[in-house]
């Protein structure tokens, strides 16, 4: 079982690396592209999708209880997909 907060930290680290790569790519696109509407439009579209995904995930992550744990590597596939059954106490002889 891995604490979910580690997964969150991993996500933040990967998004940070992604941010650096995006910055380099966008600079290359703008610097070397022919200045014009199409260059700026495609760069804007590229950045908008990234911002939308990061903000969307961020807003979902605000609702997650990060103190939980998760089983990342299942012992068997069957266990991983097993449905959890809640046991309800009911009187036997009613």
């Amino acid at each position, binding site marked *: 079982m891995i604490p979910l907060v580690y997964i969150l930290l991993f996500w933040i680290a990967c998004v940070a690396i992604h941010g650096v790569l995006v910055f*380099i790519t966008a600079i*290359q696109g703008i610097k070397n592209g022919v200045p014009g509407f199409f260059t700026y439009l*495609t760069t804007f579209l590229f950045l908008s999708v990234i911002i939308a995904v990061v903000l969307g995930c961020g807003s979902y992550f605000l609702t997650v209880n990060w103190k939980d744990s998760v089983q990342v590597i299942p012992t068997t596939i069957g266990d991983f997909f097993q*449905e959890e059954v809640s046991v309800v106490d009911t009187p036997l002889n009613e």
Partner: protein
Amino acid sequence: MSPFHLPSTREDEQTIYLLRRHWFAIIPVIIGFIIVLILPFAAYAYIRFQYPEFFSIQSRLALFIVGTSLFFLYTWLFLYQNFIDWILDIWIVTNYRIVNIEQKGLFGRTMSELMLYNVQDVTSEINGFIPTMLNYGAVRIQSAGEASRFDFEDIEHPTVIAKRILELADMRRVEHQREGNRV
């Protein structure tokens, strides 16, 4: 495009062609990436359909969203890098020279030029069904005294452009000889 973008431009230099790769050349790449980008959504739909209770546990859904968002973000980045590789390949033909600007990956960029009076041979090539239908292909330019040649890949109307470059090269060669005789 004005000759402003070209290095060491002459006063009477005019841009005849600004050539980019044909739009269809990027379509197979975009289709490939769209299929890859759909995969996380397809995986979600499949799990949801096969194991309806799987995502009822919040930690599993959080893990899935962490994984798919990273997958999506990096795939989107690679798609844009491929797009940049495609759009930043530019060939400029002026009344004096041919400028070849090629993007190779994210950090590789080659810029070379060839004076029109050095052009010896120009060949146009259209290979395949779709290039024939959409009229795009390659123009290969062989220069005198140089081993390397210029290749314009996936450009529109290659036959017309090859013919025009030959005409321009002939004109420039005559003028170059005249200038040489004057000196």
